[in-house]
């Protein structure tokens, strides 16, 4: 393989790794959202300890739904690291 072509592939791999790291910033918003839900849940349990089971169930539910956006970011990161489509595309340019 030509040295220049391999160098381009290495550049794509490196940039993909950086991109995967940037994609994981989506965990920031998810963390804030889940923390907010947990805080409100604790508040509600403090106000009404009798309904603790119901409140916990609702809170877990909301937290898991709030997780979705973080999961999208995670999916992009996994795609970039494990099954990078850009590398295949790059090498298919030369074949």
């Amino acid at each position: 393989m030509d040295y220049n072509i391999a160098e381009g592939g290495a550049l794509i791999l490196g940039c993909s790794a950086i991109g995967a790291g940037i994609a994981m910033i989506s965990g920031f918003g998810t963390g804030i959202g889940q923390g907010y839900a947990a805080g409100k849940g604790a508040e509600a349990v403090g106000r009404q300890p009798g309904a603790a089971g119901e409140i916990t169930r609702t809170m877990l539910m909301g937290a898991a739904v709030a997780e979705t956006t973080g999961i999208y970011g995670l999916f992009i990161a996994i795609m970039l690291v494990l099954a990078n489509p850009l590398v295949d595309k790059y090498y298919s340019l030369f074949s």
Partner: protein
Amino acid sequence: MNPILLAGADEISMEVEVLRHFNIFGIDFAFTNTLWYSLWIAFFLILFAFIVNRKLRHVDPMKPPKGLQNALEMAIGVLDKFTAETMGPSGKGFSAFYGCLFLYIMCCNLSGLFVWFVVKDHTVIFDFMRPPTADFAVTLGLGLITFFMTQIFGIRSKGVLGRMKALAEPVFLMTPINLIGEVANPVSLAFRLMGNILAGTIIMALYYGLLPMFAYLLTPVLHFYFDVFAGILQSFIFMFLSMLYVSGAME
């Protein structure tokens, strides 16, 4: 050419492995380990149902229930109550389907705890099961079941015109956004389930790739969190959201 950048995961397979290629009517059909494990899970569920059916067929209804029958009656009572609470009184008939869906997804998620054999290149390998729900094909299939159920039951209860009118709410201009939202539902369901389980699988694989001593110390806790807690929670959420979508289209 797909270089795997993460090293040291030989205990848990991170990616879907193709065990065998079949050629059926000119179409290449890959028999993956996802398919292999999900067939085994379906087999065990059917076996369990069959055994329970044989056992409970000759039960005297006048006697108080005990043992397995008691536990199953309680579980089915909880399921019926939950379905009626979530979908309204009209949705009570869905409890059998959603119980089945919940059991299947839960068993798939929990399968990451077990070691099972896999036949590859004419050799039998014992390995941790890769949860079938960590494959996007499985979860998208389950999401598409929800999608078609939403459309079909929506049309059934309101008619074609009523369903079209429901998509044009609150104003006519919102129709494209409503259509996108309708298509996004199964995809978001599928991504949520797959992302959680796949993330758990990858993190477990990385921990198993550590020094063995650390791996044995750390992995039981992680197995509990990623497989048991996240697995049961995600299967519950999948069922709950699927119920909400279907009952939302029916109202």
